[in-house]
């Protein structure tokens, strides 16, 4: 298949902030020039620290926030300028699972109503009986008993609520499932259940996944490729195993080194290698390479010109002047 399911080109999402009495308001560059393709059935992880633009990028792709410039090409059609009404039919194929499992479920609706709602909106041709059948089937697929349809979200634990949210997103059999930090609010033992569930669903239904997460260990389990963002800009994009075994961007290396490993023989030493500093304000990003203020390898060249997002090998892109050095 040549045409990717989703093609993102030079995508920018800027938010005006503050109201200047004279002149233009400042622009917060949440997403600032992102390119990638997503193939059918592929899972792409989007990682970075808070404020790197990963959630905004996901929401812009779903057209939940307007993009400022660039292209969002969904199955060959540029949808970035479509009206809400034009986008609506696409929602059947583009679904999302949110971070906070309870807050993203309507507390006044029963579980059955919650999971059936996308069907009522997007598949009105289904009879009541067919709809009920589809809901029961999907609840079983996410590991819940169909008996739960008459109960309310508050009666369930966080992990079960996340299963309900996944059932709601999957009931239309979407082509793309966007997951925005879907396991971050869950207990450790429950995280593994949800990660395994997403793996199973992906295998069985073959949908693509955009997996937004700050948890690089979870991303490694679930995704075939990973995009690393910093201050709205892509730093590195690579196949998962390549990214974790041979990261080329100093930011990627810093992120990976920060994830704790539950082994007392190695972890105390890793602590000493922590990436310094904090994310600069996106209102006044550094000149040249935006990462240079925290980069252990930065030199004068990095402040002058931003590196382009170069292909360093097949399917591996890096935005760094010094990617050839270890």
């Amino acid at each position, binding site marked *: 298949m040549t045409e990717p399911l989703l093609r993102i080109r030079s995508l920018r999402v800027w938010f005006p902030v503050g109201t200047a009495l004279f002149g233009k308001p400042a622009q917060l560059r949440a997403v600032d020039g992102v390119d990638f393709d997503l193939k059918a059935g592929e899972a792409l992880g989007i990682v970075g*620290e*808070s404020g790197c633009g990963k959630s905004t990028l996901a929401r812009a792709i779903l057209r939940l926030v307007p993009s400022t410039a660039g292209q969002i090409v969904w199955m060959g059609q540029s949808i970035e300028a479509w009206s809400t009404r034009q986008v609506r039919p696409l929602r059947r194929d583009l679904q999302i699972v949110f971070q906070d499992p309870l807050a993203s479920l309507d507390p006044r609706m029963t579980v059955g109503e919650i999971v059936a709602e996308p069907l009522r909106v997007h598949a009105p041709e289904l009879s009541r009986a067919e709809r009920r059948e589809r809901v029961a089937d999907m609840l079983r697929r996410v590991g819940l008993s169909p008996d739960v349809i008459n109960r309310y979200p508050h009666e369930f*634990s966080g*992990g*079960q609520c996340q299963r309900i949210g996944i059932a709601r997103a999957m009931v239309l059999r979407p082509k793309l499932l966007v997951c925005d930090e879907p396991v971050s609010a869950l*207990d*450790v*033992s*429950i*995280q*593994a*259940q949800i*990660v*395994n569930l997403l*793996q199973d669903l992906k295998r069985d239904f073959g949908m693509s996944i955009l997996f937004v997460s*700050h*948890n*690089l*260990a*979870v991303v*490694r*389990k*679930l995704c075939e490729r990973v995009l690393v963002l910093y201050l709205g800009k892509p730093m590195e994009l690579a196949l998962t*195993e390549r990214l*974790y*075994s041979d990261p080329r961007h100093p930011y990627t290396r*810093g*992120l*990976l*080194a*920060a*994830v*704790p*490993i*539950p*082994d*007392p*023989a*190695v*972890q*105390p030493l*890793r*602590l*000493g290698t*922590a*990436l*310094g500093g*904090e*994310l600069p304000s996106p209102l006044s990003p550094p000149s040249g390479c935006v990462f240079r203020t925290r980069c252990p390898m930065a030199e004068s060249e990095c402040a002058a010109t931003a590196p382009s997002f170069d292909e360093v090998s097949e399917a591996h892109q890096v935005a760094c002047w010094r990617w050839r050095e270890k």
Partner: protein
Amino acid sequence: MSTVLSIRDLVVQFSTPDGVVPAVNEFSLELVPGECVGIVGESGAGKSQSFLAVMGLLAGNASVSGSARLGEAELLGNDREALNAVRGSKLAMIFQDPMTSLTPHLRVVDQIGESLIRHRGFSKAQARQRALELLRLVQVTDAERRLDQYPHELSGGMRQRVMIAIALACDPEVLIADEPTTALDVTIQAQILALLAQLKRERGMSMVLVTHDLGVVAGIADRVVVMYGGRIVERGAVKDILLAPQHPYTRALLASMPRIDEVGNAPLQAIGGQPPNPRSLPSGCAFHPRCALAADRCANERPALNVAADRAVACHFPIRGDAHD
């Protein structure tokens, strides 16, 4: 060896309209000078409540029994005045959410200086000078300017550093850190943990680190206490607990964590079910409904915490593998 903090048979219960809810049962811990003990468990395991009890910070409907001694001073059941003499000076605590635990309308300098003025009789000018030193100690950038800022002007990582500076102000004997890095990015978490490790190493501070993340304890703790359903299920040296766990829960928790250094996408070994609700703890061993090794006995008889050499485990069928090196 002498102990700096000694907790014996701590019991915490909450009386609610639905009856008495046990949060912590028979919790004991001896903290020796200069060591860091990690307290690990999931939501509702009782790990935070144990130390809120020690600090006298439990909700109004809580009742506490047992003993918690800091040196010679008994902390439990003490009146407020006696507790205040210890809190913030000999015993300090930092919390998960640095925004809600800082006072929003007070400048950084006043929040750090408060305990110095109260406990050490510092003047305002002395407190300001010491606050500046403390901010530098916890590696706050641009420390001079930060003194006069308010919490909302600081990033999350910076707020947690300010919290640590407040806690360190009076040079406490024991620092209790309750999920100090859970709300932070991994990069900032690594910085804060490196800072805590440095404080422990250079100042010989005793530390209790409450966390749900076994990776966090691996980097800094000397010993680990694993809690489940309000009780200690396993306790021992960090190396023993993480590399050769004897309790099935500890082993399952380790196996359920995805690891950054693990190649491939083999399914995680999830623990079925969910952490128990303290309102309705399972009979016998609280972990038995989720335990792969459970037998009839586990549902009927609660296993006692078996202390042997320098580790302890509460299980009828502990895992005894080959000794590791």
